[in-house]
């Protein structure tokens, strides 16, 4: 069953055609990676899905419902959640409070405290719970924001470059986190430049280039595709 479906989605910024007739179907339960060169329009596509931008034309539906005209918070409440490219944690608040704010619409009292503890352990942030989120390392901020995103128990988790700034070990750990979430039933759409991560998690890969869907397939098909190598992976491996 399709969880998310984009039909002929276009987005213009003035004369700039950033998203060009994108058609994309995300199946319930898959981990799907979105790759492509810098400026391909990947983050913009996320913003369209989240309702931060509205498409110039086209339609977006989620779980069978047309959400094209919905406000962002309403889309979140229907089961979307996101980790931004630039970590959007609440810098002046403690790590614990960051998670509390994400969880409090679902839980309260002792159940809330327990779920925060569970998430802290899942994110390897036990020791940092009293710290200001702004003082975390870049990788820890990424984890904290992933934690806030999954605290909502979303049906679809959007991750924009979740491993940027992480060491190879941390990247691998993040991959394992994503796989565990997926095993528990969460559908994931991740933008990534790190091909080791993509290989670790992706069941399907879509390549975006100049705002268009350039190629789609399994990771092996994509890596073997010479056209993709020419526009993106060639440079990435160089």
């Amino acid at each position, binding site marked *: 069953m399709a969880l998310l479906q984009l039909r002929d989605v276009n987005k213009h910024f003035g004369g700039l055609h950033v998203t060009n007739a994108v058609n994309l179907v995300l199946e319930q339960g898959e981990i799907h990676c979105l790759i492509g060169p810098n400026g391909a329009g990947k983050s913009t596509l996320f913003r369209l899905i989240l309702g931060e931008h509205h498409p110039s034309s086209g339609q977006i539906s989620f779980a069978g419902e047309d959400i094209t005209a919905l406000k*962002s*918070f309403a889309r*979140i409440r229907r089961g979307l959640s996101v980790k931004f490219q630039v970590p*959007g944690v*609440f810098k002046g608040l403690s790590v614990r*409070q960051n998670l*509390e704010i994400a969880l409090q619409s679902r839980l309260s009292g002792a159940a809330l405290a327990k779920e925060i503890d569970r998430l802290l352990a899942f994110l390897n942030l036990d020791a940092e719970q009293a710290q200001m989120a702004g003082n975390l390392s870049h990788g820890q901020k990424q984890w904290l924001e992933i934690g*806030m995103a999954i605290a909502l128990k979303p049906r679809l988790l959007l991750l924009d470059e979740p491993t940027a700034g992480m060491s190879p070990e941390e990247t691998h750990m993040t991959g394992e986190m994503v796989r565990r979430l997926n095993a528990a039933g969460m559908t994931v759409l991740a933008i990534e430049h790190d091909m080791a991560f993509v290989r670790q998690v992706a069941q399907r890969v879509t390549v975006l280039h100049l705002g268009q869907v350039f190629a789609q397939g399994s990771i092996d098909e994509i890596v073997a595709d010479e056209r993709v190598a020419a526009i993106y992976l060639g440079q990435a491996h160089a």
Partner: protein
Amino acid sequence: MTGFLSLFRRLEGPQTLGRGPAFWALFALVLAGALAYPLFSDGYTVGNTVYFFVWVFIALSLSLIWGYGGSLSFGQTAFFGIAGYSYGILTINFGASYGFTWIALLLAVGMAALIAALLGYFMFFGRIAGVFLGIVTLAVTLMLERFMAQTAGPEWRIGAARLNGFNGMSAMPPLTIPWFGGPIVLFADVGLYYVVLAMLVLVYLALRILMNSAFGNVIVAIRENPERAEMLGYDIRKYQLITFVIGAALAGLSGVLYTVWGQYITPSSMGMTAASLPLIWVAVGGRSDLTATIIGTLVVLSGFQALTIYGSQYALVFMGVLLVLTVLIAPNGLVLGVINWITKLVTRRKQEAA
């Protein structure tokens, strides 16, 4: 019952300084001191102290909207004025019997809240934020001042109440408690002192509970990162609007109390100077904490009054210098800085002792 108890637990939390028996013992001590103070003073001095207390509500409103919510509003003085004038118009027309002054107080505060709801709706649902919010609210404040200043003619009257232009309105009845032996009129001395003190304590505790609740969490989240807050499923415009309305009601309460204290209100209470002074108290105290805001406001206000004795023009210059110094030395507020420094010292002592 458990719901009621959980409210008390919210008196402490990450959004407010002060917790544990030591803090509440100090709070009780200060309160006891404030309660006993009129016994050791004269009516005139006590009345003067009420004047300081009156301003604390508008300072708290700024702490709420700006310090906690992250939206700088110059509109607080407008709500101050709206409520002050409303009280005057109502009581001059309907008098003070049957406890009407208290109803007038509520209606006047409600008027400020209503106008804030209308203005706030257009601002927040029109996604006006940051500097633009400051500009819009300042424009509203100055427009209101200009408007009231030109109401000198006899045609500017609402019922029996003349608006009186630049000279403002005066001789409205003070707050009056109906009583068996005859009404108790709260002039600016001991009686009004206790009433305003009680309001102050109630508002302070209520705001502590509010800010440490789930609602308060969302408010500070919006200050830290509105996009992230919305992407956690919160309709942030609604939260901003509610905060703005509560803030306007508090500023309105200041306005009414100011009006009953001196039995007058003038357009200059909404002018540029009036709009910037509360910003200075709150910035100097520490806008992101209720307690620091109150201490800062009382200290700076009494300092300001002491200075005016030597010449008011210097007092204003001094205020400006104080603001610049705060921004340079302790951008989060001088009082807040000192409190944080003491807390650090105490915890270090404790750790060394352990």
